[in-house]
């Protein structure tokens, strides 16, 4: 489960931040997940609760926000949202790399990362 490796990288980073002087109590972590990644928010939330157990950020809350996918076509110059495959059998419409205007392959410009955006904390 890759959510577990992502959660532990996340927790390592946030714990390091919390423990660096002045010591802080972390209330909330805002994580942005790109639509082109296949990180499952539900699984990640679960992994976070496990990975924070018995750490200094045990009581913190993880909030996950999705970053919309965007692509760029080198064939026709299109830039914007990807073409979606609605009747694939995935849980929701699937963002594809097919250009919405010319049908060639596009490249991803947004939505393939997983980043910590905000850490909310109080100083102790």
């Amino acid at each position, binding site marked *: 489960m890759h959510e577990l*490796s992502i959660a532990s990288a996340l927790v390592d980073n946030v714990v390091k931040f919390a423990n660096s002087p002045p010591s802080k109590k972390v209330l909330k972590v805002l994580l942005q997940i790109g639509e082109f990644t296949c990180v499952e928010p539900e699984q990640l939330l679960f992994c976070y609760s496990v990975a924070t157990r018995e750490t200094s950020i045990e009581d913190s809350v993880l909030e996950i926000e999705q970053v919309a996918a965007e692509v760029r076509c080198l064939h026709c110059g299109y830039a914007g949202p990807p073409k979606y*495959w609605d009747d694939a*059998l995935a849980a929701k419409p699937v963002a594809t790399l097919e250009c919405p205007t010319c049908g060639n392959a596009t490249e991803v410009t947004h939505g393939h990362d997983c980043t*910590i955006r905000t850490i*909310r904390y*109080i100083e102790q």
Partner: protein
Amino acid sequence: MIKIEASPEEIYDIELEHSLLEANAKLAEKNRAVLDRNGITAIDFMGAIGSGKTTLITRLVEKLKDRVGVAVFNGDATTSSDADPIAAYGVPVVQIATINGCHLDANVVAKACARIDLGKLRLIFIENIGNLICPAEFPLGSKARVVVVSVTEGPYMVRKHPHMFLGAQLVVINKIELAETMDVSVEALTGDVHKLKPDLRVIPTSCKTGAGIDDVARAILAV
């Protein structure tokens, strides 16, 4: 970039742009640079357990070992049963055990590279852990990622696991000699792949009859 806003209750928000995938991506680039310097192309194979990754790699080793230096990293390393038949061809094989058991990462691949003599190699085949969704987020430093699917996984294999294909450079549809028996259309699976990524090359193979293996070998030598 750091911006701190204090609110009346002394609650602070620190804004970051810290990528959790970047550390691995950087290591992967480093692996790639080391391999490039040695004139080595690494190819990694992803796909479900039983899709035929080990068998395909074995066939490719068989075909290519007398022409070019080949090594194999096996990430499915709970037992040595996969590695032994490949090692029997006299090529270096490194078994990689991962802690999380979900995917290889660039760090373990760097360690595997350090265990072999890179001097005489031209190709390294990396068998990723049999898993359908994970590997895409963890580049290893390979020049091409191959997804191996088999017709025995049913007609909806691609639709159900679309993410795996987006980051691939080659798709192998394996066990095609069973397509009719399984009532699975290789053309339909290929069409599904192209809906996701129109320029993604698809090669149908059978490791049993040998169909398509030469095409895969040629595609890999051309990477």
